[in-house]
């Protein structure tokens, strides 16, 4: 499978496709926390780094197979997520933002000083087990499960927390439990994404998982349209490709990126697909077709 793909797709494009896939997994995780449930988490890269390091250490020091590493990465990240989430998610407001920023910074500093994590040098020589097939297979599974979740009763409960936490609670939604559950799934996906990232680049360093990385993932979620899976996919694709496309402006790349964020937010404050609904598209399409048919009948 992988050989076949490599035969047809240029290595450069293949690399971008794999990165899009990894970013999608990270962004879908954060979408569940911030986009769907409305809890602002700004330390996604921290959970990602926990996954990346767990996976890399298991592979390097214990010779574990990739599947075990991947699962362990997800579980470790989710467990830390629950530990962070239970005390903070009981509170309303932006506390989660601050706590997750702080947590991610602490994690980064700890990895910078931890012997087993290679300190500032990071870890290298991680087995390159991530490839296109694995990443996109996981993406498809996660998108399907995620879509199923959001259409189910618990999914609607999550949306209701975002819309009005008080009303949700009054309607019998155990808000704390749902928020923690969303946080656990989201951080699990962050761990998986981190593991894939580590086994793709084969080299990780604490600086890869700084505040800017968290912000990057958050941008993907908000830019596409909060809480919508097609929106998250679009935002991720656009923001993963954007640095590549903007390569021609070289040093001005980040300048454009920053300006782009501001401009996009001013013109599409709910994200690119944030307030687009299928039913509206269908309706306007029907109206458009109806008008054309009416015109052709007049002509005839």
């Amino acid at each position: 499978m992988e050989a076949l793909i490599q035969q047809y797709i240029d290595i450069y494009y293949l690399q971008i496709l794999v990165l899009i896939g990894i970013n999608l997994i990270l962004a879908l995780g954060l979408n569940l926390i911030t986009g769907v449930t409305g809890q602002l988490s700004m330390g996604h890269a921290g959970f990602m780094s926990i996954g990346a390091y767990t996976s890399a250490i298991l592979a390097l020091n214990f010779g574990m197979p990739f599947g075990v590493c991947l699962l362990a990465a997800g579980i470790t990240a989710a467990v830390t997520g629950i530990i962070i989430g239970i005390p903070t998610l009981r509170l309303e407001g932006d506390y989660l933002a601050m706590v997750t920023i702080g947590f991610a910074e602490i994690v980064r500093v700890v990895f910078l000083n931890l012997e087993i994590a290679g300190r500032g040098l990071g870890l290298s020589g991680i087995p390159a087990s991530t490839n296109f097939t694995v990443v996109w297979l996981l993406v498809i599974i996660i998108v399907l499960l995620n879509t199923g979740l959001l259409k189910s009763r618990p999914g609607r409960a999550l949306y209701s927390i975002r819309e009005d936490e008080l009303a949700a609670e009054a309607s019998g939604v155990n808000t704390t439990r749902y928020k923690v559950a969303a946080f656990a799934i989201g951080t699990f996906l962050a761990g998986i994404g981190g593991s894939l990232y580590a086994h793709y680049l084969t080299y990780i360093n604490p600086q890869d998982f700084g505040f800017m990385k968290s912000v990057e993932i958050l941008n993907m979620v908000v830019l596409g349209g909060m809480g919508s899976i097609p929106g998250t996919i679009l935002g991720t694709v656009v923001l993963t490709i954007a640095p590549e496309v903007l390569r021609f402006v070289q040093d001005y790349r980040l300048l454009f990126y920053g300006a782009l964020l501001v401009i996009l937010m001013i013109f599409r404050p709910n994200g690119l697909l944030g307030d687009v609904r299928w039913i509206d598209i269908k309706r306007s399409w029907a109206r458009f077709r109806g008008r054309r048919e009416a015109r052709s009948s007049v002509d005839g």
Partner: protein
Amino acid sequence: MFWQQLVNGLTLGSTYALIALGYTMVYGIVQLINFAHGEIYMFGAFAGLFLVLTFKINIFLAILGAMIFCMLLGMTVERVAYRPLRGSSRLSALISAIGVSIFLSTLMVLVRGPNVTSYPAEVMEIATYNLGAIEVSSLQVMILVTAGLLMLGLEVLVHRTKIGKAMRACSQDLDAARLMGIHVDRVISFTFALGSALAAAGGVMVGVYYNAVQPYMGVMAGLKAFAAAVLGGIGSIPGAMLGGLALGIMENLGIAYLSSSYKDAIAFGILILVLLVRPQGLLGRATTKKV
């Protein structure tokens, strides 16, 4: 040792407090975590450096110049990137703020290069005073006094003037304030100007104190100052002052008694611990939500 670290911590903490005030005032009125605030502080440090290098003026004039420059910068940022988003969700304003932050730091990298530059030594004569076991430099005294005066001025402004009263009204209830005839947009603009000016003063003083100015200095300082604002209770002005000082002192004591390699983790660790016990921050008021 302890007293020495206390003095160093107070100096560092008073600069955190100056930056934290900007976060807390803006958050208090528009509930926006203004992530570009750290970059305003960085621009302040560079503006001061520019003034010192070009006009050979002394440090106080440089602080004043940087404050005026950043006032304008802060108001421009608010006008361009935040005001159009006033009615939309808070997250879109947050992303816009992040965009501004990336834009401004990249702009400075393009203008000045990514390297560390330092203030010329003649910007201020540094004397060291020995008070028993502790050493205090004239620079530390200058920072403490300037920061103290600025904060005092802010207190007076917020509690004794008409615009201060308008700011307090806006932070209580924006809609009610508008109905009472307060020009809300102007108050918000003024709040940004005020916060930016304080951050600029902090920037120049930190630049001189550590003898280092670089385009990415705003990121960590901004995060820590935001942590200080949350620690003190976000939205509360005395809270930001207390939070900044507390954070600076604890960070310095942590470096002295624990380990310097965990420097950045200490501040955030303390913050998380405090939030677990007192989620509204040290001086924040717990609000009960009414339907």
